[in-house]
């Protein structure tokens, strides 16, 4: 259940960025390939936000779709999982371009 430490990380980043102001909402980006489950982050958020500037804040989660680049043929394509082959040439040497994000994007403060 590493979502608990991930969520604590979110709260820490927000507290240092909000400089004491109450946080109304926080937008985070979770890539589709990151091993973090949005539902679990939401579940942990309320507990982690308690008694902080984030108490009562709205959590907005944006999923970032995964895209890959084939080292063999340079094709770019959407990726659903790490083990997928390049749809153009069938090679498994695929570099992940996006989809591994785990980022606090922005805050709305009072």
């Amino acid at each position, binding site marked *: 259940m590493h979502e608990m*430490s991930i969520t604590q990380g979110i709260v820490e980043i927000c507290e240092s960025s909000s400089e004491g102001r109450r946080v109304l909402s926080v937008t985070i980006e979770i890539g589709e390939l990151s091993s973090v489950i949005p539902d679990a982050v939401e579940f942990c958020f309320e507990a982690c936000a308690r008694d902080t500037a984030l108490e009562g804040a709205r959590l907005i989660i944006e999923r970032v779709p995964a895209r890959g680049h084939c080292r063999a043929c340079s094709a770019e394509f959407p990726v659903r999982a790490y083990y997928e082959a390049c749809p153009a040439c069938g090679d498994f040497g695929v570099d992940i371009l996006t989809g591994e994000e785990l980022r*606090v994007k922005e805050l709305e403060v009072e």
Partner: protein
Amino acid sequence: MCTTCGCGPEDQHHHNHDHDEKHDHGHTHAHRHEHKPEHQHKHEHHDGTVAKTISVETDILAKNNRLAEGNREFFTEKGVFVLNLVSSPGSGKTTILEKTLRDLQGKLNFAVIEGDQQTDNDAVRIAATGAPVKQVNTGAGCHLDAHMVCHAADNFDMDSLDVLMIENVGNLVCPASFDLGENYKVVVLSVTEGEDKPLKYPNMFHNAQVMLLNKIDLLPYVDFDADKCKAFARRINPGITIFDVSSKTGEGMDEWYNWLAAGARKKV
């Protein structure tokens, strides 16, 4: 107050490390003083509640990554080769370590950080080999992080070490996301597990650079297709280096030892 990263005592109760036992070993690592204490002053002000948007764009794992980078610099400065051993519970990580430490005794100087939710059973096994060991109990935590490793490493005389082995909590999911400052992640998979584990837990096999396929002495007795398993691992991670080993019979261990010794030599 911990001297290595500036954290206060209230930050430390969740993982046990004895701060006083070895703080006199003479090395300073000022570059590991990474995170500034973040003050959490919360005060209500203004009554006009005009919302303001602040762009943050900060990686949620940034703090761990910063501490991990500090660890890596420190290990490099000390010329210590560091491996992070990850696997599901029961794959044989501790047995591989015991055998490796015994067989390479006198050739390389090892220290071990043992991560488990509870007990110091593994640390006791490692200590019996004569290598210095530090047990870290994560309690409810499912992985080691860079902060825990930073403190655990304070228990060793790093100048005398060639290799630091970090045995992570047995878990094929969470430890994949947390950089500890190691040189390589080594994933252990045993033939008593499913051959499709690389596909089921792709993040871990994607992030590891080395895979030890363990318990190969049991291959005649189990329905495990080793070639298929390795093909799956290479599908996730074409560059992964794979060693077939049996920590029980010693089969294949020499190749692993050669790789280890070459890595340690490069660091000196």
